[in-house]
């Protein structure tokens, strides 16, 4: 992990390239996080790749409800040579949940961005095949959001399917 000073140096370099790319830096329990603007995500990852963080270990979504901006996307980068990790975080509002996709540059993000879209409703602009990954195609809502209730849907078995009329017709019909 870069220490607090190293993280500030990286943030400084990123700010030199793009003045308002980095919103904040966070160093917590030895874990370095760069908080960047959504539009600056691909550029930031690319610059960090140039600094050796060449492996995108994970892309995942977070919901910061009730804080705003609510939705977060976190990119965990790994430098396989010096075994160094850094996280890049971006946050978007639910009304405008657009983040540029990094799939063209990092093929591993494909399924993981689809999962974040499925579970949180973050729209990754430029993703080649942005479909729901886990939930059914016709599912409404994004179940990992904090205000999405647990339960409330009938669990369908062969024996109770006739007693749950209209479940396939969707709302309003």
């Amino acid at each position, binding site marked *: 992990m870069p220490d607090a000073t190293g993280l500030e140096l990286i943030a400084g370099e990123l700010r030199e390239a793009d003045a308002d790319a980095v919103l904040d830096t966070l160093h917590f329990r030895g874990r370095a996080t760069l908080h960047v603007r959504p539009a600056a995500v691909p550029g930031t990852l690319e610059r960090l790749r140039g600094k050796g963080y*060449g492996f995108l270990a*994970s892309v995942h979504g977070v919901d910061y409800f009730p804080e705003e901006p609510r939705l977060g996307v976190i990119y*965990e980068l790994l430098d396989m040579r010096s075994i160094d990790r850094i996280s890049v975080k971006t946050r978007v509002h639910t009304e405008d949940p657009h983040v540029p996709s990094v799939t063209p540059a990092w093929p591993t993000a494909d399924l993981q961005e689809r999962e974040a879209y499925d579970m949180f409703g973050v729209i990754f602009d430029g993703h080649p095949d942005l479909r729901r990954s886990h939930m059914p195609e016709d599912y409404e809502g994004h179940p990992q959001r904090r205000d999405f209730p647990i339960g409330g849907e009938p669990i369908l078995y062969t024996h109770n399917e006739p007693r749950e009329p209209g479940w396939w017709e969707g709302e309003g019909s």
Partner: protein
Amino acid sequence: MALTPDIDYREMERSVELSEIQHGPEDEFLTLNMGPHHPATHGVLRLLTTLEGEVVRDVKPIIGYVHTGIEKTCEDKAYWKVIPIVERMDYLSYYFNAHAFCGAVETLLDLEVPPRAQYLRVIHSELNRIASHLIWLATGGLDLGAMSVFWYGWRDRDQILDLFEMSSGQRMHTRYFQVGGVMEDIPPGFEDAVRRFTSGFPTRLDQFEDLIDKNEIVLQRLRNVAAVDEQTLLGLGVTGPLLRATGNPFDLRKAAPYSSYDHFDFKIPVGTVGDNYDRYRVRMAEMRESVKIIEQALDGLPEGPYITDNRKIALPPRHELATSMEALIHHFKLVTEGFRVPPGEVYYPIESPRGELGCFVRSDGSAKPARVHMRDPSFVNLQAFKPMVQDLYIADLIATLAMLDPILGGIDR
């Protein structure tokens, strides 16, 4: 009223775009659906394949058939009640799921794990790694037509489950790892039983290799099949035995030792070309290294507590409840509300049998996690399936899927 709705399932999936393949006017393509209920898909994985004759030209994995919302459920449980739930994600490497989650929470709490607990975690994790690889060997052998390997693999794995039953009372999903240590100390006789297993197991591996290594059919099915180069795999985020088969020795146990792995002397097996044969050899060699780690951990097992003595995190010993009011209060607080975790976010990666298993936990300061996410290696590794099997025979697709070793419980969560 009709019992089943009138849904055209192909119509529902019209957004699944199959690749455009350039071909002559006389070529015929067949779209074949495999799974989700197909024994060779190792779970409920659905593969939409485009075939030209017997040759796979395109494959689209479709997942989500065992999605049970485990990550969502975790947000509704106190931290220590999350452990049995995350264990059910990748159901063959349950100790690793629990380890990644406990490690993330311990990092958030800034909590030190006693050395004895770290060693006990290593012993159980490595036993679990062997058990998981044995299932891979058994089912992979079955997919290649090696029926006897299937039975023998299952037999040896059952011996490991007996050991788990001895130490925790459960054969699978043991809930043995706790935040701050392990649930209880190993019982008398456990060490002898593990040593009996580890002394006999290398012979078992020799027998497996006698069965498989010189088998002409297996060799032809595995050698130079589905090789993918290291750079492609790295771009796709692949870790674990699949990456090591290409010669990249990245293993978190060595690269970023956690839980005292730096105390043990073991090697990281790597392959050369990254074909199915290398994947097979790497996993076989890993089992031998795991045996070495277990024996060293038993030799050096430190005395001391098996769980942290921080009473705000770990339950007090049973005998204290009868005499100490404070212990009673701590016990009551822990089993009702659970412990609170300072706000923050942590990503804690460990090396599972399938690669980097990272657990992301976000705490908002309450007694329940605000977000639990598992970076499951099967989920990420599955993306490498298409580059592996493109332009191979469909029979090799089955063998390659077995060597990829995906666990759908971990993919769908």
